[in-house]
Protein backbone atom coordinates (compact mmCIF):
# COMPACT_ATOMS: atom_id res chain seq x y z
CA UNK A 1 0.00 0.00 0.00
CA UNK A 2 1.31 3.41 -0.91
CA UNK A 3 1.06 6.04 1.74
CA UNK A 4 -1.51 8.69 0.83
CA UNK A 5 -0.16 11.88 -0.64
CA UNK A 6 -0.77 14.32 2.13
CA UNK A 7 0.97 17.34 3.52
CA UNK A 8 4.22 15.53 4.19
CA UNK A 9 5.31 14.59 0.67
CA UNK A 10 8.26 16.60 -0.58
CA UNK A 11 6.44 17.31 -3.85
CA UNK A 12 3.87 19.23 -1.83
CA UNK A 13 6.66 21.41 -0.49
CA UNK A 14 7.75 22.18 -4.05
CA UNK A 15 4.23 23.29 -4.94
CA UNK A 16 3.94 25.37 -1.78
CA UNK A 17 7.23 27.14 -2.51
CA UNK A 18 6.12 28.04 -6.03
CA UNK A 19 3.05 29.69 -4.52
CA UNK A 20 5.33 31.77 -2.32
CA UNK A 21 6.96 33.12 -5.48
CA UNK A 22 3.76 34.34 -7.12
CA UNK A 23 4.70 37.97 -6.61
CA UNK A 24 7.97 37.54 -8.45
CA UNK A 25 7.34 38.22 -12.14
CA UNK A 26 10.70 36.78 -13.09
CA UNK A 27 9.71 33.30 -11.93
CA UNK A 28 8.21 31.10 -14.63
CA UNK A 29 6.95 27.55 -14.25
CA UNK A 30 7.23 24.94 -16.99
CA UNK A 31 5.30 21.70 -17.13
CA UNK A 32 5.33 18.58 -19.27
CA UNK A 33 1.76 17.47 -18.56
CA UNK A 34 2.42 16.25 -15.02
CA UNK A 35 1.76 19.44 -13.11
CA UNK A 36 -0.98 17.79 -11.07
CA UNK A 37 1.59 15.26 -9.91
CA UNK A 38 4.63 17.48 -9.40
CA UNK A 39 2.38 20.11 -7.79
CA UNK A 40 3.32 22.93 -10.16
CA UNK A 41 -0.41 22.95 -10.91
CA UNK A 42 -0.86 25.10 -7.81
CA UNK A 43 1.19 27.87 -9.41
CA UNK A 44 -0.51 27.43 -12.76
CA UNK A 45 -3.94 27.91 -11.18
CA UNK A 46 -2.87 31.23 -9.70
CA UNK A 47 -0.65 32.58 -12.46
CA UNK A 48 -1.27 30.99 -15.86
CA UNK A 49 0.47 33.91 -17.59
CA UNK A 50 3.79 32.71 -16.17
CA UNK A 51 3.17 28.99 -16.62
CA UNK A 52 4.17 27.25 -19.83
CA UNK A 53 2.54 23.95 -20.69
CA UNK A 54 4.75 21.96 -23.03
CA UNK A 55 2.84 18.72 -23.27
CA UNK A 56 4.44 15.31 -23.01
CA UNK A 57 7.70 16.52 -24.49
CA UNK A 58 10.47 16.77 -21.92
CA UNK A 59 13.37 17.43 -24.27
CA UNK A 60 11.67 20.52 -25.64
CA UNK A 61 10.87 21.71 -22.11
CA UNK A 62 14.53 21.67 -21.07
CA UNK A 63 15.61 24.02 -23.84
CA UNK A 64 12.54 26.27 -23.64
CA UNK A 65 13.50 26.76 -20.01
CA UNK A 66 17.09 27.54 -21.03
CA UNK A 67 15.93 30.11 -23.57
CA UNK A 68 13.74 31.83 -21.00
CA UNK A 69 16.57 31.86 -18.48
CA UNK A 70 18.97 33.59 -20.84
CA UNK A 71 16.25 36.18 -21.37
CA UNK A 72 16.16 37.09 -17.69
CA UNK A 73 13.64 34.67 -16.21
CA UNK A 74 14.07 32.05 -13.48
CA UNK A 75 12.47 28.85 -14.76
CA UNK A 76 11.24 26.09 -12.50
CA UNK A 77 10.55 23.10 -14.74
CA UNK A 78 9.17 19.83 -13.48
CA UNK A 79 8.11 16.36 -14.52
CA UNK A 80 8.65 12.91 -13.05
CA UNK A 81 12.26 12.20 -12.11
CA UNK A 82 12.36 9.33 -14.56
CA UNK A 83 11.17 11.50 -17.45
CA UNK A 84 13.74 14.19 -16.80
CA UNK A 85 16.19 11.48 -17.77
CA UNK A 86 14.75 11.41 -21.30
CA UNK A 87 16.08 14.95 -21.57
CA UNK A 88 19.41 14.20 -19.93
CA UNK A 89 21.50 15.18 -22.92
CA UNK A 90 19.43 18.35 -23.25
CA UNK A 91 20.25 19.14 -19.63
CA UNK A 92 23.89 18.29 -20.23
CA UNK A 93 24.44 20.26 -23.41
CA UNK A 94 21.70 22.86 -23.21
CA UNK A 95 21.71 23.78 -19.52
CA UNK A 96 24.71 22.56 -17.52
CA UNK A 97 27.37 23.11 -20.19
CA UNK A 98 26.54 26.79 -20.77
CA UNK A 99 25.73 27.08 -17.02
CA UNK A 100 22.23 28.41 -17.62
CA UNK A 101 20.19 28.75 -14.44
CA UNK A 102 17.26 26.38 -14.84
CA UNK A 103 15.76 24.65 -11.82
CA UNK A 104 14.61 21.19 -12.76
CA UNK A 105 12.43 19.23 -10.38
CA UNK A 106 11.94 15.49 -10.79
CA UNK A 107 9.09 14.22 -8.68
CA UNK A 108 8.09 10.62 -7.94
CA UNK A 109 11.74 9.62 -7.56
CA UNK A 110 12.86 6.36 -6.01
CA UNK A 111 11.19 3.03 -5.34
CA UNK A 112 9.08 4.78 -2.70
CA UNK A 113 6.92 5.87 -5.64
CA UNK A 114 5.40 2.45 -5.24
CA UNK A 115 2.69 0.78 -7.22
CA UNK A 116 3.42 2.42 -10.59
CA UNK A 117 6.27 -0.06 -10.82
CA UNK A 118 9.85 0.03 -12.02
CA UNK A 119 9.29 2.15 -15.13
CA UNK A 120 8.37 5.09 -12.89
CA UNK A 121 10.91 4.51 -10.14
CA UNK A 122 14.00 6.53 -10.97
CA UNK A 123 16.88 5.12 -8.94
CA UNK A 124 19.69 6.70 -10.93
CA UNK A 125 18.73 10.37 -11.27
CA UNK A 126 20.93 11.67 -8.47
CA UNK A 127 23.90 9.80 -9.90
CA UNK A 128 23.56 11.04 -13.45
CA UNK A 129 22.93 14.69 -12.61
CA UNK A 130 25.77 14.63 -10.11
CA UNK A 131 28.21 13.96 -12.94
CA UNK A 132 27.42 17.26 -14.66
CA UNK A 133 29.71 20.24 -14.01
CA UNK A 134 27.85 23.33 -12.73
CA UNK A 135 24.84 21.34 -11.49
CA UNK A 136 23.54 21.49 -7.93
CA UNK A 137 21.70 18.31 -6.92
CA UNK A 138 19.14 18.31 -4.12
CA UNK A 139 16.91 15.71 -2.55
CA UNK A 140 14.87 17.00 0.39
CA UNK A 141 13.19 14.61 2.81
CA UNK A 142 9.79 16.15 3.54
CA UNK A 143 7.48 18.93 2.46
CA UNK A 144 8.80 21.50 4.90
CA UNK A 145 12.42 21.16 3.84
CA UNK A 146 11.46 20.87 0.16
CA UNK A 147 9.68 24.19 0.44
CA UNK A 148 12.65 25.86 2.12
CA UNK A 149 15.15 24.51 -0.40
CA UNK A 150 12.98 25.40 -3.40
CA UNK A 151 12.73 28.96 -2.09
CA UNK A 152 16.51 28.99 -1.66
CA UNK A 153 16.87 28.11 -5.34
CA UNK A 154 15.20 31.38 -6.34
CA UNK A 155 18.51 33.19 -5.88
CA UNK A 156 20.81 30.26 -6.63
CA UNK A 157 23.26 31.09 -9.38
CA UNK A 158 23.63 27.66 -10.94
CA UNK A 159 21.35 25.16 -12.63
CA UNK A 160 19.88 22.56 -10.33
CA UNK A 161 18.13 19.25 -10.19
CA UNK A 162 15.88 18.55 -7.22
CA UNK A 163 14.28 15.18 -6.70
CA UNK A 164 11.04 15.08 -4.77
CA UNK A 165 9.03 12.08 -3.63
CA UNK A 166 5.45 11.14 -4.35
CA UNK A 167 4.47 9.84 -0.95
CA UNK A 168 4.13 11.31 2.46
CA UNK A 169 6.57 10.51 5.24
CA UNK A 170 6.66 11.84 8.83
CA UNK A 171 8.08 15.35 8.89
CA UNK A 172 11.67 15.77 10.03
CA UNK A 173 11.52 19.56 10.07
CA UNK A 174 9.50 22.30 11.64
CA UNK A 175 9.13 25.65 9.93
CA UNK A 176 11.74 27.01 12.35
CA UNK A 177 14.35 24.32 11.78
CA UNK A 178 13.84 24.48 8.03
CA UNK A 179 14.92 28.13 8.18
CA UNK A 180 18.40 26.88 9.01
CA UNK A 181 18.69 24.87 5.80
CA UNK A 182 21.39 25.96 3.40
CA UNK A 183 22.13 24.49 0.00
CA UNK A 184 25.41 22.59 0.29
CA UNK A 185 25.30 22.16 4.06
CA UNK A 186 24.12 18.90 5.63
CA UNK A 187 21.65 19.27 8.48
CA UNK A 188 22.52 17.41 11.69
CA UNK A 189 19.30 16.10 13.21
CA UNK A 190 20.88 14.13 16.00
CA UNK A 191 24.38 13.82 17.42
CA UNK A 192 26.19 10.69 18.58
CA UNK A 193 29.81 9.58 18.48
CA UNK A 194 29.61 5.87 17.66
CA UNK A 195 28.39 5.96 14.07
CA UNK A 196 27.09 8.55 11.62
CA UNK A 197 24.10 7.87 9.38
CA UNK A 198 24.02 10.17 6.37
CA UNK A 199 20.68 10.03 4.63
CA UNK A 200 18.59 11.85 2.07
CA UNK A 201 14.98 11.91 0.95
CA UNK A 202 12.50 9.52 2.47
CA UNK A 203 15.37 7.60 4.08
CA UNK A 204 16.00 10.42 6.58
CA UNK A 205 12.94 9.23 8.46
CA UNK A 206 14.23 5.65 8.44
CA UNK A 207 17.63 6.88 9.63
CA UNK A 208 16.10 8.73 12.58
CA UNK A 209 14.14 5.62 13.50
CA UNK A 210 17.32 3.56 13.21
CA UNK A 211 19.11 5.95 15.58
CA UNK A 212 16.38 5.39 18.15
CA UNK A 213 16.79 1.62 17.81
CA UNK A 214 20.59 1.86 18.06
CA UNK A 215 20.33 4.00 21.18
CA UNK A 216 18.37 1.21 22.87
CA UNK A 217 21.40 -1.02 22.43
CA UNK A 218 23.76 1.66 23.65
CA UNK A 219 25.00 2.90 20.28
CA UNK A 220 24.81 6.65 19.82
CA UNK A 221 24.35 7.71 16.21
CA UNK A 222 24.64 11.03 14.45
CA UNK A 223 21.94 11.48 11.81
CA UNK A 224 22.48 13.91 8.96
CA UNK A 225 20.00 14.97 6.31
CA UNK A 226 22.31 15.37 3.33
CA UNK A 227 19.70 17.16 1.25
CA UNK A 228 22.39 18.47 -1.09
CA UNK A 229 24.09 15.64 -2.93
CA UNK A 230 26.17 18.10 -4.93
CA UNK A 231 28.09 20.06 -3.89
CA UNK A 232 28.58 17.53 -1.12
CA UNK A 233 29.27 18.91 2.34
CA UNK A 234 32.71 17.31 2.44
CA UNK A 235 33.70 19.19 5.59
CA UNK A 236 30.86 17.60 7.48
CA UNK A 237 31.49 14.12 6.06
CA UNK A 238 35.18 14.33 6.97
CA UNK A 239 34.41 15.63 10.44
CA UNK A 240 31.97 12.75 11.01
CA UNK A 241 34.51 10.23 9.75
CA UNK A 242 37.05 11.55 12.24
CA UNK A 243 34.64 11.72 15.15
CA UNK A 244 32.56 8.57 14.65
CA UNK A 245 34.93 6.35 12.70
CA UNK A 246 32.10 4.49 10.96
CA UNK A 247 29.52 5.74 8.47
CA UNK A 248 26.29 4.53 6.87
CA UNK A 249 24.57 6.15 3.94
CA UNK A 250 20.85 5.67 3.33
CA UNK A 251 19.10 6.68 0.12
CA UNK A 252 16.14 5.64 -2.00
CA UNK A 253 18.43 5.34 -5.00
CA UNK A 254 20.94 2.93 -6.43
CA UNK A 255 23.92 2.47 -4.14
CA UNK A 256 25.97 3.24 -7.26
CA UNK A 257 26.73 6.88 -7.86
CA UNK A 258 24.26 8.65 -5.60
CA UNK A 259 24.68 9.73 -1.99
CA UNK A 260 26.57 6.54 -1.10
CA UNK A 261 28.87 7.00 -4.05
CA UNK A 262 29.46 10.66 -3.26
CA UNK A 263 30.28 9.97 0.39
CA UNK A 264 32.56 7.06 -0.58
CA UNK A 265 34.46 9.35 -2.98
CA UNK A 266 34.84 11.92 -0.24
CA UNK A 267 36.09 9.38 2.30
CA UNK A 268 38.73 7.79 0.08
CA UNK A 269 40.11 11.22 -0.73
CA UNK A 270 40.04 12.72 2.76
CA UNK A 271 39.68 10.25 5.61
CA UNK A 272 38.97 6.57 4.85
CA UNK A 273 36.78 4.83 7.43
CA UNK A 274 34.35 1.89 7.09
CA UNK A 275 31.22 2.82 5.13
CA UNK A 276 28.06 0.78 4.59
CA UNK A 277 25.63 1.86 1.90
CA UNK A 278 21.88 1.29 2.25
CA UNK A 279 19.95 1.74 -0.97
CA UNK A 280 18.84 -0.16 -4.04
CA UNK A 281 21.43 -2.86 -4.67
CA UNK A 282 21.99 -2.60 -8.44
CA UNK A 283 18.57 -3.86 -9.46
CA UNK A 284 15.26 -2.40 -10.61
CA UNK A 285 12.19 -2.11 -8.43
CA UNK A 286 8.71 -3.46 -9.05
CA UNK A 287 5.10 -2.67 -8.18
CA UNK A 288 4.26 -2.63 -4.53
CA UNK A 289 3.54 -0.36 -1.61
CA UNK A 290 6.25 2.02 -0.48
CA UNK A 291 6.88 0.23 2.78
CA UNK A 292 6.62 -3.18 1.17
CA UNK A 293 9.30 -2.21 -1.29
CA UNK A 294 11.56 -0.70 1.37
CA UNK A 295 11.17 -3.94 3.30
CA UNK A 296 11.84 -6.17 0.30
CA UNK A 297 14.91 -4.18 -0.72
CA UNK A 298 16.35 -4.14 2.83
CA UNK A 299 16.01 -0.39 3.19
CA UNK A 300 14.09 -0.14 6.47
CA UNK A 301 15.35 1.28 9.74
CA UNK A 302 16.27 -2.21 10.97
CA UNK A 303 18.54 -2.63 7.93
CA UNK A 304 20.23 0.66 8.74
CA UNK A 305 20.77 -0.62 12.29
CA UNK A 306 22.42 -3.77 10.92
CA UNK A 307 24.56 -1.70 8.58
CA UNK A 308 25.64 0.57 11.43
CA UNK A 309 26.72 -2.43 13.47
CA UNK A 310 28.62 -3.84 10.49
CA UNK A 311 30.39 -0.53 9.95
CA UNK A 312 31.32 -0.27 13.64
CA UNK A 313 32.58 -3.87 13.66
CA UNK A 314 34.92 -3.06 10.78
CA UNK A 315 36.68 -0.26 12.67
Amino acid sequence: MSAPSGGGASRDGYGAALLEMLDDDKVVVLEADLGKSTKSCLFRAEKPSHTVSLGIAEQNMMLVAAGMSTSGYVPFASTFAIFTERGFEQVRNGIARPNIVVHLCGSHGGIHTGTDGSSAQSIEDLAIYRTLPNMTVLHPCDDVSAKALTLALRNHDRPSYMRTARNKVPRSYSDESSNELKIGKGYVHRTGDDVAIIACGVMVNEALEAADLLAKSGIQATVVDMHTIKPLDTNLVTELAKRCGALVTAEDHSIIGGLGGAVAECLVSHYPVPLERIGVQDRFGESGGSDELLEMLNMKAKNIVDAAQRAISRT
Partner: protein
Amino acid sequence: MAERGMGLEIPELESMAKRCRRNIVRMVYGIGAGHPGGSLSAIDMLTGLYGHRLRVDSDNPKWSDRDRFIMSKGHASPGVYSILHERGFLTEDDLSSFRKLGGSCQGHVDMKWCPGVDFSAGSLGMGLSFGIGCSLAAKLDGSDRTSWVMLGDGELQEGQVWEGVMSAVHHEIDNLTVIVDRNGIQNDDFCETQMRMFDVSEKFASFGWAVMEIDGHDMAQVVDAIDWADQVTGGPACIVMHTVKGKGVSYMENNPKFHGAAPNEEQFILAMEELS
Protein backbone atom coordinates in the same frame (compact mmCIF):
# COMPACT_ATOMS: atom_id res chain seq x y z
CA MET B 1 19.10 51.24 -29.34
CA ALA B 2 20.63 49.39 -32.25
CA GLU B 3 19.16 49.53 -35.72
CA ARG B 4 17.79 46.66 -37.72
CA GLY B 5 20.41 45.22 -40.04
CA MET B 6 23.11 47.39 -41.57
CA GLY B 7 21.10 49.26 -44.16
CA LEU B 8 22.72 47.39 -47.06
CA GLU B 9 21.38 46.95 -50.57
CA ILE B 10 21.28 43.61 -52.38
CA PRO B 11 24.64 44.03 -54.25
CA GLU B 12 26.35 44.98 -50.99
CA LEU B 13 24.89 41.95 -49.27
CA GLU B 14 26.09 39.76 -52.13
CA SER B 15 29.60 41.15 -51.76
CA MET B 16 29.48 40.57 -48.04
CA ALA B 17 28.41 36.97 -48.54
CA LYS B 18 31.36 36.41 -50.87
CA ARG B 19 33.78 37.81 -48.27
CA CYS B 20 32.21 35.47 -45.73
CA ARG B 21 32.66 32.52 -48.06
CA ARG B 22 36.36 33.26 -48.30
CA ASN B 23 36.65 33.46 -44.52
CA ILE B 24 34.75 30.20 -44.11
CA VAL B 25 37.20 28.38 -46.35
CA ARG B 26 40.17 30.13 -44.71
CA MET B 27 39.07 29.10 -41.22
CA VAL B 28 38.52 25.49 -42.11
CA TYR B 29 41.73 25.27 -44.13
CA GLY B 30 43.67 27.04 -41.35
CA ILE B 31 42.93 24.40 -38.74
CA GLY B 32 42.44 21.48 -41.12
CA ALA B 33 39.02 20.70 -39.72
CA GLY B 34 35.46 22.00 -39.55
CA HIS B 35 32.30 22.05 -41.61
CA PRO B 36 32.52 24.11 -44.78
CA GLY B 37 29.58 22.58 -46.68
CA GLY B 38 26.76 23.65 -44.39
CA SER B 39 28.39 27.01 -43.73
CA LEU B 40 28.52 27.80 -47.43
CA SER B 41 24.92 26.73 -47.96
CA ALA B 42 23.72 28.92 -45.08
CA ILE B 43 25.83 32.00 -45.62
CA ASP B 44 23.55 33.92 -47.97
CA MET B 45 20.73 33.74 -45.43
CA LEU B 46 23.11 34.59 -42.58
CA THR B 47 24.18 37.63 -44.56
CA GLY B 48 20.57 38.56 -45.21
CA LEU B 49 19.72 38.27 -41.52
CA TYR B 50 22.68 40.19 -40.13
CA GLY B 51 23.00 42.63 -43.00
CA HIS B 52 19.31 43.37 -43.51
CA ARG B 53 17.33 42.51 -40.41
CA LEU B 54 18.78 41.60 -37.02
CA ARG B 55 18.80 44.27 -34.35
CA VAL B 56 22.01 43.54 -32.49
CA ASP B 57 24.79 45.68 -31.08
CA SER B 58 28.43 44.62 -31.29
CA ASP B 59 29.29 47.20 -28.62
CA ASN B 60 26.83 45.56 -26.29
CA PRO B 61 26.53 41.89 -27.30
CA LYS B 62 24.39 40.99 -24.27
CA TRP B 63 21.94 43.87 -24.77
CA SER B 64 18.76 42.36 -23.36
CA ASP B 65 16.46 43.60 -26.12
CA ARG B 66 18.54 42.32 -29.02
CA ASP B 67 17.04 40.02 -31.60
CA ARG B 68 18.19 36.45 -31.06
CA PHE B 69 19.79 34.36 -33.76
CA ILE B 70 20.06 30.71 -32.85
CA MET B 71 22.24 28.54 -35.04
CA SER B 72 20.87 25.15 -34.15
CA LYS B 73 23.08 23.38 -36.70
CA GLY B 74 26.03 24.49 -34.65
CA HIS B 75 28.64 22.79 -36.80
CA ALA B 76 28.08 25.54 -39.39
CA SER B 77 30.09 27.71 -37.02
CA PRO B 78 32.48 29.13 -39.65
CA GLY B 79 29.45 30.66 -41.32
CA VAL B 80 28.33 32.29 -38.07
CA TYR B 81 31.81 33.52 -37.22
CA SER B 82 32.32 35.01 -40.66
CA ILE B 83 29.11 37.03 -40.46
CA LEU B 84 29.77 38.08 -36.85
CA HIS B 85 33.07 39.40 -38.14
CA GLU B 86 31.26 41.44 -40.78
CA ARG B 87 28.88 42.81 -38.13
CA GLY B 88 31.78 43.85 -35.87
CA PHE B 89 31.58 41.23 -33.14
CA LEU B 90 34.79 39.38 -34.08
CA THR B 91 38.23 40.44 -35.25
CA GLU B 92 40.46 38.74 -37.81
CA ASP B 93 42.41 37.33 -34.87
CA ASP B 94 39.22 35.86 -33.46
CA LEU B 95 38.57 34.10 -36.76
CA SER B 96 42.10 32.71 -36.64
CA SER B 97 41.31 31.17 -33.25
CA PHE B 98 38.81 28.76 -34.83
CA ARG B 99 39.00 25.38 -33.11
CA LYS B 100 42.18 26.39 -31.27
CA LEU B 101 42.76 26.07 -27.53
CA GLY B 102 41.33 29.08 -25.71
CA GLY B 103 39.89 30.57 -28.89
CA SER B 104 36.60 32.44 -28.98
CA CYS B 105 35.66 30.54 -32.11
CA GLN B 106 34.99 27.08 -30.70
CA GLY B 107 34.37 24.12 -32.99
CA HIS B 108 30.62 24.48 -32.51
CA VAL B 109 29.09 27.89 -31.76
CA ASP B 110 29.22 28.59 -28.03
CA MET B 111 27.59 31.51 -26.22
CA LYS B 112 30.07 31.26 -23.38
CA TRP B 113 33.06 31.74 -25.65
CA CYS B 114 31.97 34.00 -28.43
CA PRO B 115 30.41 37.49 -28.33
CA GLY B 116 27.29 37.69 -30.47
CA VAL B 117 26.48 33.99 -30.15
CA ASP B 118 23.15 33.49 -28.39
CA PHE B 119 23.10 29.71 -28.09
CA SER B 120 25.59 26.97 -27.34
CA ALA B 121 24.92 24.41 -30.04
CA GLY B 122 26.62 21.27 -31.22
CA SER B 123 23.99 18.69 -30.42
CA LEU B 124 21.32 18.77 -33.10
CA GLY B 125 17.65 19.33 -32.46
CA MET B 126 17.81 21.74 -29.54
CA GLY B 127 17.86 25.21 -31.05
CA LEU B 128 14.19 25.59 -31.90
CA SER B 129 13.21 24.83 -28.30
CA PHE B 130 15.67 27.44 -27.07
CA GLY B 131 14.29 29.96 -29.55
CA ILE B 132 10.77 29.27 -28.30
CA GLY B 133 11.99 30.08 -24.78
CA CYS B 134 13.53 33.34 -25.99
CA SER B 135 10.33 34.27 -27.82
CA LEU B 136 8.09 33.45 -24.87
CA ALA B 137 10.29 35.63 -22.67
CA ALA B 138 10.07 38.49 -25.19
CA LYS B 139 6.28 38.28 -25.06
CA LEU B 140 6.26 38.30 -21.26
CA ASP B 141 8.49 41.37 -21.40
CA GLY B 142 6.19 43.07 -23.89
CA SER B 143 9.20 43.47 -26.17
CA ASP B 144 9.17 43.47 -29.97
CA ARG B 145 12.44 41.54 -30.16
CA THR B 146 12.33 38.44 -32.33
CA SER B 147 14.01 35.05 -32.53
CA TRP B 148 15.39 33.44 -35.66
CA VAL B 149 16.41 29.79 -35.61
CA MET B 150 18.33 28.03 -38.37
CA LEU B 151 17.91 24.27 -38.64
CA GLY B 152 19.64 21.85 -40.95
CA ASP B 153 17.47 19.55 -43.01
CA GLY B 154 19.20 16.47 -41.62
CA GLU B 155 18.56 17.94 -38.19
CA LEU B 156 14.83 17.58 -38.80
CA GLN B 157 15.32 13.88 -38.14
CA GLU B 158 15.68 14.67 -34.44
CA GLY B 159 12.41 14.11 -32.59
CA GLN B 160 12.86 17.15 -30.38
CA VAL B 161 12.48 19.41 -33.41
CA TRP B 162 8.88 18.27 -33.80
CA GLU B 163 8.18 18.73 -30.11
CA GLY B 164 9.21 22.32 -30.69
CA VAL B 165 7.28 22.65 -33.94
CA MET B 166 4.12 21.56 -32.16
CA SER B 167 4.60 23.79 -29.12
CA ALA B 168 5.38 26.95 -31.13
CA VAL B 169 1.97 26.69 -32.77
CA HIS B 170 0.20 25.77 -29.54
CA HIS B 171 1.57 28.91 -27.91
CA GLU B 172 0.93 31.04 -31.04
CA ILE B 173 4.49 32.30 -31.06
CA ASP B 174 4.58 34.84 -33.88
CA ASN B 175 7.88 36.48 -32.93
CA LEU B 176 9.75 33.39 -34.07
CA THR B 177 11.01 32.31 -37.48
CA VAL B 178 12.62 29.02 -38.39
CA ILE B 179 14.86 28.76 -41.41
CA VAL B 180 15.48 25.29 -42.78
CA ASP B 181 18.69 24.96 -44.74
CA ARG B 182 17.50 22.36 -47.24
CA ASN B 183 20.85 21.45 -48.74
CA GLY B 184 20.00 17.76 -48.98
CA ILE B 185 23.18 16.42 -47.40
CA GLN B 186 23.99 15.25 -43.89
CA ASN B 187 27.09 13.77 -42.28
CA ASP B 188 27.22 10.38 -43.93
CA ASP B 189 25.54 10.99 -47.24
CA PHE B 190 22.57 12.57 -49.01
CA CYS B 191 19.51 12.91 -46.79
CA GLU B 192 17.56 10.88 -49.31
CA THR B 193 19.66 7.83 -48.51
CA GLN B 194 19.89 8.39 -44.75
CA MET B 195 16.29 9.28 -43.91
CA ARG B 196 13.88 10.59 -46.48
CA MET B 197 11.99 13.68 -45.37
CA PHE B 198 9.72 14.16 -48.36
CA ASP B 199 8.03 17.55 -48.43
CA VAL B 200 9.48 19.61 -45.57
CA SER B 201 7.25 22.61 -46.25
CA GLU B 202 4.16 20.44 -46.14
CA LYS B 203 5.25 19.03 -42.79
CA PHE B 204 5.59 22.46 -41.20
CA ALA B 205 2.37 23.65 -42.81
CA SER B 206 0.51 20.63 -41.50
CA PHE B 207 1.47 21.63 -37.95
CA GLY B 208 0.02 25.09 -38.59
CA TRP B 209 3.12 27.10 -39.50
CA ALA B 210 3.14 29.77 -42.17
CA VAL B 211 5.65 28.54 -44.76
CA MET B 212 7.56 30.15 -47.61
CA GLU B 213 9.97 28.37 -49.95
CA ILE B 214 12.85 30.21 -51.55
CA ASP B 215 16.11 29.79 -53.37
CA GLY B 216 18.50 30.34 -50.48
CA HIS B 217 21.22 31.68 -52.76
CA ASP B 218 19.12 34.41 -54.39
CA MET B 219 19.73 37.42 -52.12
CA ALA B 220 16.60 39.23 -53.28
CA GLN B 221 14.51 36.20 -52.35
CA VAL B 222 16.36 35.90 -49.03
CA VAL B 223 15.56 39.50 -48.11
CA ASP B 224 11.94 39.17 -49.26
CA ALA B 225 11.52 36.03 -47.16
CA ILE B 226 12.90 37.76 -44.08
CA ASP B 227 10.50 40.65 -44.58
CA TRP B 228 7.64 38.18 -45.15
CA ALA B 229 8.43 36.35 -41.90
CA ASP B 230 8.27 39.62 -40.02
CA GLN B 231 4.73 40.17 -41.24
CA VAL B 232 3.40 36.75 -40.19
CA THR B 233 1.00 37.06 -37.26
CA GLY B 234 -0.80 34.61 -35.04
CA GLY B 235 1.85 31.94 -35.18
CA PRO B 236 5.39 31.03 -36.20
CA ALA B 237 6.91 31.37 -39.66
CA CYS B 238 9.12 28.90 -41.50
CA ILE B 239 11.37 29.67 -44.45
CA VAL B 240 12.41 26.54 -46.28
CA MET B 241 15.39 27.61 -48.31
CA HIS B 242 16.65 25.36 -51.06
CA THR B 243 20.41 25.53 -51.05
CA VAL B 244 23.49 23.80 -52.39
CA LYS B 245 25.83 22.37 -49.85
CA GLY B 246 29.29 23.84 -50.40
CA LYS B 247 27.85 26.63 -52.60
CA GLY B 248 30.52 28.73 -54.26
CA VAL B 249 33.36 26.21 -54.28
CA SER B 250 33.02 23.92 -57.27
CA TYR B 251 34.38 20.72 -55.82
CA MET B 252 32.46 21.14 -52.56
CA GLU B 253 29.11 21.78 -54.19
CA ASN B 254 26.61 19.02 -53.51
CA ASN B 255 29.43 16.81 -52.30
CA PRO B 256 28.81 14.90 -49.04
CA LYS B 257 32.57 14.64 -48.49
CA PHE B 258 32.71 18.32 -47.62
CA HIS B 259 30.10 18.22 -44.90
CA GLY B 260 32.89 18.04 -42.36
CA ALA B 261 36.24 18.07 -44.13
CA ALA B 262 38.85 20.71 -44.87
CA PRO B 263 40.36 21.33 -48.29
CA ASN B 264 44.00 20.49 -48.94
CA GLU B 265 46.42 23.18 -50.11
CA GLU B 266 45.69 22.72 -53.79
CA GLN B 267 41.95 22.74 -53.13
CA PHE B 268 42.30 25.81 -50.92
CA ILE B 269 44.05 27.76 -53.66
CA LEU B 270 41.36 26.75 -56.14
CA ALA B 271 38.62 27.80 -53.71
CA MET B 272 40.19 31.22 -53.21
CA GLU B 273 40.38 31.70 -56.98
CA GLU B 274 36.75 30.75 -57.40
CA LEU B 275 35.68 33.10 -54.60
CA SER B 276 37.82 36.04 -55.67
